[in-house]
């Protein structure tokens, strides 16, 4: 497996988005290196189930980045990202199941399929704002499991049963377990996708996206084609979430309609808020939260795990109304203040 | 005459930005005070600070009560009616509902009906439009509605932020006649912010001149009116 190159890491170390009041601590080079170093050795230190869970954190993080591009940077709401996640997962599963596609090659196909679908969905959805857009995307989320269960599609989708796929081995005889290999594979994809998101947000396109979020009227008068940018953002956001879905399918080796209900959208939304809306690295905090905290809640009380989870969400919002981003911002300011003195 | 409103060392800020830097002034009971100053001097902010609509420190007393820490709604209930800049009418509600809202905190329901008639007396056009949505009134009509709504509170003190803004010249004079009547006949004290300094100084007994959040001159309105130098350099007439 090709390790993340020197350049790549340098590029991550670039301060993310000067225009957004993004906390810069995570943009700091040493922090990036340390995090990546830990991420690289972690699977050799922990049990394979934890490695599997960490892989899922990365998968969620990619999906949350996708949602963040749409919501945090373009100001559009979506309750429908479970649909894009499902589409990505099913494209990957069907390609592997029906035509024996290599697993790595399913990712770009899933991404492109979701981009096209997201772009086309974005076109009419443009006319809708706020709650109405929320409802349209919500409809999409609700429809998805029902469509996946449809009897005429059963040959491809496996109906209610879904599709089982096999776990890939590490290539080139690398001395890694399947779980470890999948972790590194996912990590590579995550690093690339995060980088691309950073660059997108810092580019002219990203500035146009944010201008539309902050002041559509002014953006229009600046000559920004709002319809095009909004649809494109929808497409890119769907692409991210679709790639996450494909990865998720490969990691859990299974897709079924009921894994992709409206609650998946909600989970992604919670992850987005917990991480911080409009701050890309927040996705990792959010991904970890939505994966680990429900398990933790379960360990506190089986019967009341949902209540414990709910209380933790609410307490977190009370303490950090802007999510991990706010915390990191505060810590950064502290550190900076000390440096000056 | 004793002061109805007394402001001492008033600071106010929007987030981290300080806008007012220690203003002290007062409005006497049954008196008219005017705040003058250029754009961005802090006149609107001063009125907002009195009503607790922006973060403020200092000492504000109204009718002997300290209101520096009171909420906007509490201050309104004490009898301070604020006609904000941009009018602040409830655009989706009808004219009549807007006027009723002006009196919403009053207990003397029978008098409210009389007051409604009184406001219609001052502004007959409002009676004609009583069932119409406030947002569909013309700018001048909305201004009248805003003042009418403030009257419905039976205020002891009215804070008026550029009440003549957007009114035709004839209406401006009518409006100032009404304000004079209110003050002289009904004893309502006024704190008046106006671009039209000449008019304001005619009505006011006291005037304060604001520049970037500080009072640079204060005195009896008559003095300012007659002080050629101040008129030229600050008021431009």
């Amino acid at each position: 497996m090709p390790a993340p190159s020197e350049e790549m890491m340098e590029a991550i170390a670039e301060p993310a988005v000067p225009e957004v009041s993004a906390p810069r601590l995570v943009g700091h080079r040493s922090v990036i290196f340390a995090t990546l170093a830990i991420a690289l050795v972690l699977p050799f230190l922990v049990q394979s189930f934890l490695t599997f869970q960490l892989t899922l954190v990365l998968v969620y993080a990619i999906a949350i980045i996708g949602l963040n591009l749409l919501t945090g940077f373009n100001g559009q709401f979506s309750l429908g990202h479970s649909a894009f996640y499902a589409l990505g997962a099913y494209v990957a599963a069907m390609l592997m199941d029906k035509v024996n596609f290599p697993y790595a090659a399913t990712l770009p196909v899933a991404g492109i399929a979701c981009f096209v679908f997201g772009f086309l969905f974005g076109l009419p959805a443009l006319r809708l704002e706020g709650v109405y857009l929320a409802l349209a995307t919500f409809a999409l989320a609700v429809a998805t499991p029902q469509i996946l269960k449809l009897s005429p599609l059963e040959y491809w989708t496996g109906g209610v049963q879904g599709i089982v796929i096999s776990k890939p081995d590490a290539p080139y005889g690398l001395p890694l377990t399947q779980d470890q290999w999948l972790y590194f594979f996912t990590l590579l994809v995550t690093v690339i996708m995060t980088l691309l998101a950073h660059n997108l947000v810092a580019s002219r396109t990203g500035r146009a996206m944010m201008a539309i979020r902050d002041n559509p009227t002014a953006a229009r008068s600046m000559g920004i084609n709002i319809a095009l940018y909004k649809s494109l953002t929808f497409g890119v956001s769907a692409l991210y979430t679709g790639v996450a879905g494909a990865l998720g399918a490969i990691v859990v080796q299974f897709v079924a309609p009921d894994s992709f209900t409206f609650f998946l959208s909600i989970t992604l939304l919670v992850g987005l808020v917990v991480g911080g809306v409009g701050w890309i690295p927040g996705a990792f905090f959010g991904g970890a939260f939505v994966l680990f905290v429900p398990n933790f809640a379960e360990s506190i009380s089986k019967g009341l795990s949902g209540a414990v989870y709910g209380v933790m969400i609410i307490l977190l919002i009370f303490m950090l109304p802007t999510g991990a981003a706010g915390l990191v911002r505060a810590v950064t300011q502290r550190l900076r203040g000390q440096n000056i003195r | 005459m004793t002061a109805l409103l007394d402001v001492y060392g008033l600071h106010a800020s929007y987030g981290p930005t300080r806008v007012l830097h220690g203003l002290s002034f007062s409005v006497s009971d049954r008196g008219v005070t005017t705040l003058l100053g250029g754009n961005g001097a802090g006149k609107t902010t001063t009125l907002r600070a009195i009503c607790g609509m922006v973060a403020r420190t200092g000492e504000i007393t109204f009718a002997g009560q300290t209101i520096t820490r009171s909420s906007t709604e509490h201050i309104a209930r004490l009898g301070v009616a604020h006609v904000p800049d941009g009018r602040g009418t409830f655009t989706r509600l009808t004219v009549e509902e807007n006027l009723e809202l002006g009196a919403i905190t009053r207990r003397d329901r029978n008098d409210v009906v009389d007051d409604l008639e009184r406001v219609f007396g001052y502004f007959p056009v409002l009676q004609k439009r009583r069932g119409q949505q406030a947002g569909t009134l013309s700018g001048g009509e909305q201004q009248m509605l805003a003042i009418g709504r403030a009257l419905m509170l039976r205020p002891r003190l009215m804070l008026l932020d550029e009440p003549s803004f957007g009114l035709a010249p004839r209406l401006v004079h009518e409006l100032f006649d009404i304000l004079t009547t209110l003050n002289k006949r009904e004893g309502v004290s006024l704190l008046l912010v106006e671009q039209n300094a000449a008019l304001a100084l005619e009505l006011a007994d006291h005037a304060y001149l604001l520049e970037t959040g500080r009072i640079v001159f204060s005195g009896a309105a008559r003095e300012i009116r007659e002080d050629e130098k101040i008129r030229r350099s600050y008021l431009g007439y």
Partner: protein
Amino acid sequence: MELLLQQILAGLATGTIYACIALAIVMTYQAIGHLNFAQGEMAMFSTFIAWQLTQWGAPYWVAFFVTVAVSFAGGVLIELIVLRPIQHAPVLSHVAVFIGLLAILNSLAGFLWDFNVKPFPTPFGTAPLFANGFIDAHQAGMIAVTLFLLAFLYVFFRFTRVGLAMRAAAHDPVSARLVGIRVGWMTALGWGMAAAIGAIAGMMIAPVVFLEPNMMLGVLLYGFAGAVLGGLTSPAGAVIGGLIVGVIENLAGTFIPVIGGELKLTIALAIIVVVLVMKPQGLLGRPVLHRV
């Protein structure tokens, strides 16, 4: 023709369920400008309280009114404890808090009353109202209760001072403060009323869908659809929207072959989205000022 009429009537009967919950959604939206995702779970929890009271031997109407009162107080408390502290937080933080609330209520109800389906009494009986059996007494009662609620809300908002103050506080909180309205209390009152209406909706719905912690999930979806279709700002719109959703759902299930039955909800939602694309303010709504 006979079939069509029958399906429309059946659709109106289910639509009433959605109308009830849509009404509660619109109430909250009016009070706070957000869609409350926990609305369904709040209604479910209230219904369990009523069930518990009847289990303890309370007569139906006693349980009914006690539940409405308790729910009102609960709604006010939720506003004061959970939402007041984050009133200036971004929209999505509210959404996350609603989700947290949903999880808490759902899990707590399961813990206290388990997940087994329970029958819930109806005060109206279940005898068919007419000989042809289109609509039974409970459904008719439910329609009557919904219409009563609607009339009540209309009178409350149109002709009472508190109602006027609530509308003013919702439309323009800053100006409302300037005329002396305690905006915070109006918001809490709105939550209380929404919770009470939700409780009534839950108690009307429970005899039909049976009582269990997840009973409201599906209903809430349709309720949202109805509320948004009606325009979110108008109680009457919410009721009409809810009824339309019920009818569309039923007709789609009956008249669209093969996929109709499996995709009832999807088709209903798709039609609603199409309506919204053509009429973005909803059927009876006013322009929404960029709030979610």
